[in-house]
């Protein structure tokens, strides 16, 4: 009985000292900064976020020029957070006039990116949404008249960085570049991050353009027809003239 009591005390003291020594070693290791790869603390607001790898499924980004509004992503999404409708543009191809992704519903599963036939939809590495900066234009909040500005990967990253900082604090060239790309007038609805690709003026311009092209085509067709008719008439007249000339030639022979 005494031995069991002594063994209990010994085990208690032994595991107590073992544990204390271990935590002491953790303390020393941590202060010397050898915490091991998985333990280096990322001081996020002070240091930039460390996004690992290039397949990170962050917020969605839709390249406007390529999107043909085929609703493939809408069908593939289990949660149905796409709101889109399209318009015909001048050369009769479908363009997105509204492409909203409800980020408050999106579960970032990536099924829509797989379903997109034209690879216009992609997932950026962005996750921050800084609502309080007045320049808080979310990443793809672009209005239709800025669609011609093509954005490739470095620009997307740059826009992500700049869009979230207060407008006044930006450098001059950054500011100019950003103003050219992001529409300052947009406003946020809870989760509905709209992308007004094809605003009414754009639609009117596109309709006008289409009308103009149609008129041109018709005019060209009419002109072509008129030219053909004129050609035929000319040919006919020529033939007539030739016949009369031939007749005239034949007549003097008969006379002489």
């Amino acid at each position, binding site marked *: 009985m005494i031995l069991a009591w002594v063994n209990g005390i010994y085990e208690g003291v032994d595991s107590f000292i073992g544990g204390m020594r271990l935590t002491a070693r953790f303390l020393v290791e941590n202060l010397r900064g050898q915490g091991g790869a998985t333990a280096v603390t990322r001081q996020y607001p002070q240091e930039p976020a460390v996004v690992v790898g290039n397949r990170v499924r962050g917020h969605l980004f839709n390249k406007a020029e390529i999107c043909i509004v085929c609703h493939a992503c*809408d*069908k593939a999404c289990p949660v*149905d957070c796409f*709101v889109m409708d399209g318009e015909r543009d001048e050369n009769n191809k479908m363009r997105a006039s509204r492409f909203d992704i409800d980020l408050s519903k999106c579960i970032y599963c990536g099924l829509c990116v797989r379903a997109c036939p034209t690879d216009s939809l992609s997932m950026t590495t962005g996750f921050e949404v800084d609502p309080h900066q007045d320049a808080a234009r979310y990443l793809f909040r672009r209005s239709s008249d800025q669609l011609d500005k093509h954005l490739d990967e470095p620009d997307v990253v740059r826009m992500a960085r700049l869009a979230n900082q207060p407008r006044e604090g930006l450098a001059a060239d950054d500011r100019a570049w950003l103003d050219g790309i992001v529409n300052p007038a947009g406003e946020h609805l809870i989760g509905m991050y709209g992308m007004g690709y094809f605003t009414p003026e754009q639609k009117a311009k596109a309709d006008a353009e289409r009308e103009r092209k149609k008129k041109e085509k018709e005019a060209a067709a009419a002109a072509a027809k008129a030219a053909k008719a004129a050609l035929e008439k000319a040919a006919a007249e020529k033939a007539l003239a030739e016949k009369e000339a031939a007749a005239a030639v034949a007549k003097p022979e008969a006379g002489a």
Partner: protein
Amino acid sequence: MTSAAPAGSELQAPSSKLDNAAIAERVIAAHPTVAARSSDNGQPYLLVPPAEIVRVATLLRDDAALRFDSLMDLTGWDLSKYPATPPSSDLVVAYFLHSLAHRHHLTVKVQVPREAAEVPTVSGVWAVANYFEREVWDLLGVRFAEHPNLKRIMTPDDWIGHPLRKDYAYPQSYNGVAHLREGQRFEPPPAPKPAAAAPPAAPPAPRPPPPASGGGAAAP
């Protein structure tokens, strides 16, 4: 090194695995009313009339050659929308059994009419059936006779209707708070306020069916 010799308990007897036909034939010998069937894609099962289920279950567990001591799963589904000929509107309760001693499997089904969905409980035979049956009662509405504690397990106690039935109507609101968000695109048509406890007879289809799905799934 880690997986030391099994603890020598009698559960590890040399497995004398029987195939499904042998099991079916043994059970039918003892209970003629049981029918050996197989599903559309060839999965064999035993169809047991509801009254017999407790006796069959006791046989399956205690018979030396069978020894189905572990009820892996007990679940059920509603056949009303299943494309079968002749189409039936019954509820199926399926028991999936496994024997640790002999390593063989068995599926047992009980088919009960929709209105009087009543099956005697097997929680006396397998203790885990207590929870499984409470869930089937809660979600499918099959009442289990003599169940020690038949109450809803998943949905709140004052929930109306059994969600996994194919004709289940989604609630418009619970506890005074609307179910859907304002401005949500799938705003259901303002269905008439459901009368007290009775679920509305004509279930309004509150949501359009999922995109371009075949005949099968009814609108939830």
